[in-house]
């Protein structure tokens, strides 16, 4: 519909800002029901042990304790957690053995939180310790104990080799990598390692569950995935789907960490047993020990280049340490590593292998651009090192090899409109690439490529209220990112000619909302936005038909603007939406619009994949390119970020203030991962720093002002050409900062985080004893 965009691209406050600044928003953590009981989980203190017995009598005998549950309370033949990608290898409560410190073994509900804590302490578990495997390479070694107790089948993992504890394997091959290396003038090989970091949302994960009279369950929770959660809970308890109702509360940040089912499922198990409403909220210690952090990884990269910088071959082997379980998000990521590794730079010859490996550490999950920061820390550090060895400028080397629209990715997919080159140039210009910087200073840059997870569906309803305002009902939930409350109102306003403040959005209640696949994968504004456009156009057709008969003009000569149907050529001839809305109630019926959207998966060549290929294509690949100027104190290894420029290929910014906010937030978490965040384990697999004092998130004094450059025009398939924006800028910070440090000091640190301590060690090694 070739209409001039009037609201799209404007800086509009999000519709929930007012209630949030006044403290009126009810988050999941604030939600209460009368008679609600409180929960405490008993977490495993062992990283790997057989459970011989669980003694719950002491807890059950306490007055005010209403129920205690263990794996024995799980239904026969059920009890495995089921997530977005189907059934997993993990029981809701540990059954037979524990595989990491923090795995829930039992749970207790009581009249008060204090009592629940006390009761959990009274539960005694007898363990028979097993050898603890904390290192993925140790876990893969011949003769290593099977963490899953039995060899993992090739049919489940895609892996046919002899290494142990590999729960997913994917290989992407194209061309002839050996021929590519023979053709090269320079071959560079190196290894990189990344840290386990946490999503760090400030509101803990929480669920309130109520068992209904018909055996069903109602759950209020700060989830990212209301409909998948409904399916997972129904499956777990053998309930008809519609006996489970999930109501999304406001959410105080998620970043992938609230895309699981564990918290709500345990609350449901207890609510069924106690027959009272049950609240389960994770403590911060539990969050940092036992929820679903970012996978630590190891990469070995080998790249061949010609003297002029042409990349002739890329070979990589990645170990993704998934912790005690493949879990809800382990297996899909192996192929994603290969997909991302081969995305930005042109090369025919690739051989990329990724192994997802079990260890006795925390069950890792999904965090903002899962496997993005890890893969690009390796690739982008590597390409800078190659540039140095070639004596070539790192920006020039990237520009020389950067892929563009229409090129073929090694999977056989023809790429969409990628703005990588424009983002590289924009960042180079903004930071003054090539300029002289002072002593101990350096400029660094790095690329990240991400995509929009649009292959799962979205749907929306709109209704025209009697006063001409618009109600929008969606099955998505706003994690805080603003896609639902900051983006969708603008789309409705644009399509129906109302003001954004005249759009009232209701987020997911699975009993009322149409289906949506969740606030994940940078897809909400994109997919749900497209569904909203379709719903609005449905309503709009009805309004134009009504306007045509009222105004006596054909529909083609009418438009929706200023809360009325108007004659385009004579805007004063108009009939207000409110009048149409009212008359419709007695003649013809209320104006309701419905819309759905599912992206078409791009074609690719499955023959190039081996193993478990779950993430196989890049829908609307988007580039984030960051440049940073650092100053390193050689005496302490302390890194100061003097300037930070982030360019992102966004297609079209629907609400720039929200897009900038996404980029700034992604950069800040990326800087945290780069410089100091790390979940640290001792030799027994216990987390040593499970508090926000010892696990530091960046504060206002740690971060520079991020200069954001929105690269528009390389359009995607989202509303008005938008691409997914939430994740790409979480990817480049570790590599950009590592590259800047290398140029400031001459020392390349290949292990994250680039903390003062690690950098000081690296500088000291170079200085010698």
């Amino acid at each position, binding site marked *: 519909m070739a209409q001039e965009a009037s609201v799209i691209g404007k800086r509009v406050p999000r519709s929930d800002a007012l209630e949030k600044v006044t403290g009126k928003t009810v988050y999941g953590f604030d939600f209460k029901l009368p008679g609600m009981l409180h929960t405490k989980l008993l977490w495993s203190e062992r990283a790997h042990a057989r459970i011989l017995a669980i003694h719950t009598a002491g807890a059950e005998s306490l007055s005010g304790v209403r129920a205690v549950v263990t794996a024995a309370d799980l239904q026969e033949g059920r009890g495995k957690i089921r997530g977005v990608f189907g059934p997993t290898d993990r029981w809701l409560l540990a059954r037979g053995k524990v595989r990491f410190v923090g795995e829930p073994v039992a749970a207790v509900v009581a009249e008060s939180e204090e009592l629940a804590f006390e009761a959990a302490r009274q539960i005694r578990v007898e363990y028979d310790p097993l050898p603890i495997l904390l290192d993925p390479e140790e876990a893969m070694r011949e003769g290593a104990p099977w963490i899953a107790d039995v060899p993992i089948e090739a049919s489940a993992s895609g892996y046919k080799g002899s290494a142990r504890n590999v729960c997913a394997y994917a290989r992407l091959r194209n061309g002839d990598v050996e021929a590519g290396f023979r053709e090269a003038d320079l071959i560079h090989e190196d290894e990189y390692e990344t840290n386990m970091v946490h999503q760090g949302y400030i509101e803990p994960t929480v669920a309130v569950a109520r068992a209904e009279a018909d055996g069903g369950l109602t759950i209020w929770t700060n989830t990212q995935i209301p409909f998948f959660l409904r399916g997972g809970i129904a499956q777990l308890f053998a309930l008809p789907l519609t006996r489970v109702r999930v109501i999304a509360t406001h959410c105080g*940040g998620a970043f992938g960490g609230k895309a699981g089912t564990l918290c709500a499922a345990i609350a449901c198990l207890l609510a069924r047993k106690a027959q009272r409403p049950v609240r389960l909220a994770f403590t911060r210690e539990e969050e940092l020990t036992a929820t679903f952090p970012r996978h630590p990884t190891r990469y070995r990269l080998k790249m061949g280049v010609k003297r002029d910088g042409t990349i002739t071959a890329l070979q990589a082997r990645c170990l993704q340490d998934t912790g005690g379980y493949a879990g809800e998000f382990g297996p899909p990521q192996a192929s994603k590593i290969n997909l991302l590794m081969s995305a930005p730079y042109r090369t025919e010859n690739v051989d990329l292998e990724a192994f997802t490996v079990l260890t006795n550490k925390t069950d890792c999950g999904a965090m903002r651009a899962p496997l993005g920061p890890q893969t690009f820390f390796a690739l982008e550090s590597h390409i800078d090192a190659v540039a140095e060895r070639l004596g070539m400028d790192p920006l020039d080397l990237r520009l020389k090899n950067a892929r563009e629209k229409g090129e073929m990715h090694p999977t056989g997919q023809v790429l969409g409109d990628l703005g990588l080159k424009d983002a590289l140039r924009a960042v180079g210009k903004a930071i003054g690439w090539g300029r002289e910087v002072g002593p101990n200073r350096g400029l660094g840059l790095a690329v990240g490529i991400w995509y929009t997870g649009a292959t799962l569906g979205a749907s929306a309803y709109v209704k025209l209220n009697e006063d001409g305002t618009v109600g929008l009902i969606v099955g998505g939930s706003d994690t805080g990112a603003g896609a639902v409350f900051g983006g969708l109102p603008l789309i409705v306003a644009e399509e129906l000619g109302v003001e954004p403040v005249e759009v009232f959005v209701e987020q997911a209640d699975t009993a009322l909302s149409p289906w949506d696949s969740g606030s994940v994968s940078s897809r909400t504004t994109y997919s749900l936005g497209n569904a909203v456009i379709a719903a609005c156009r449905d309503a709009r057709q009805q309004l134009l038909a009504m306007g045509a008969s009222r105004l006596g003009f054909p529909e083609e000569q009418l438009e929706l603007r200023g809360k009325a149907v108007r004659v385009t050529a004579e805007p004063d001839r108009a009939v207000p939406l409110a009048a149409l809305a009212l008359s419709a109630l007695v003649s013809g019926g209320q104006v309701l619009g419905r819309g759905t959207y599912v992206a078409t998966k791009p074609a690719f060549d499955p023959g190039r994949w081996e193993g478990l290929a779950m993430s196989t294509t890049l829908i609307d690949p988007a580039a984030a390119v960051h440049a940073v100027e650092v100053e390193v104190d050689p005496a302490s290894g302390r890194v100061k970020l003097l300037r930070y420029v982030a360019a992102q290929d966004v297609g079209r910014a629907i609400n720039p203030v929200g897009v900038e906010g996404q980029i700034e*937030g992604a950069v800040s978490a990326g800087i945290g991962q780069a410089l100091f965040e790390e979940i640290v384990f001792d030799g027994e697999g216990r987390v040593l720093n499970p508090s926000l004092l010892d696990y530091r998130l960046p504060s*206002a004094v740690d971060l520079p002002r991020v200069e954001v450059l929105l690269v528009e025009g390389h359009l995607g398939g989202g509303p008005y050409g938008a691409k997914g924006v939430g994740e790409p800028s979480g990817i480049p910070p570790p590599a950009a900062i590592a590259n800047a440090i290398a140029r400031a000091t001459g020392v390349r640190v290949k292990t994250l985080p680039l903390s003062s301590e690690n950098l000081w060690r690296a500088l000291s090694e170079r200085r010698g004893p």
Partner: protein
Amino acid sequence: MKYRVRVRVNGEEYEAQAEPHLTLVTFLRDQLGLLGTKWGCGTGDCGACTVLLDGRPVTSCMVLALSADGREVTTIEGLARDGKLHPIQEAFVEHGAVQCGYCTPAAILVAKALLEETPSPSEDEVRRALAGVLCRCTGYSKIIDAVLAAASAGR
């Protein structure tokens, strides 16, 4: 054993019975129903539960309710007057300083305390004032912009 606590919250006198170990955050949230004071960690590290105690920011999970006896507490619910937002609240809305909003009440209260003491702060002073309130969504730039804008509007 409970003790009497008398505290002025957002200009209103409250008298209640509290156990000695009851924290101010739980008192505000569970006894007074002031849910705008957020719970994030319970160990004084994230700052989400920040309120003003006699005008100074404190993490209310680290303050016992009884120690607020005879003192004045300001929570986020006490800022807007007669349906009109405080200028700092307005600036937060205008500048996109709110994303998930879970740290927003704390950040606004810290800003209020700062601007009362330092009406024209530098960016650095704003950063230092906000250092105790963790935000994972925004990267702080838009929060800082909002505080600076509220400061210049107040001049």
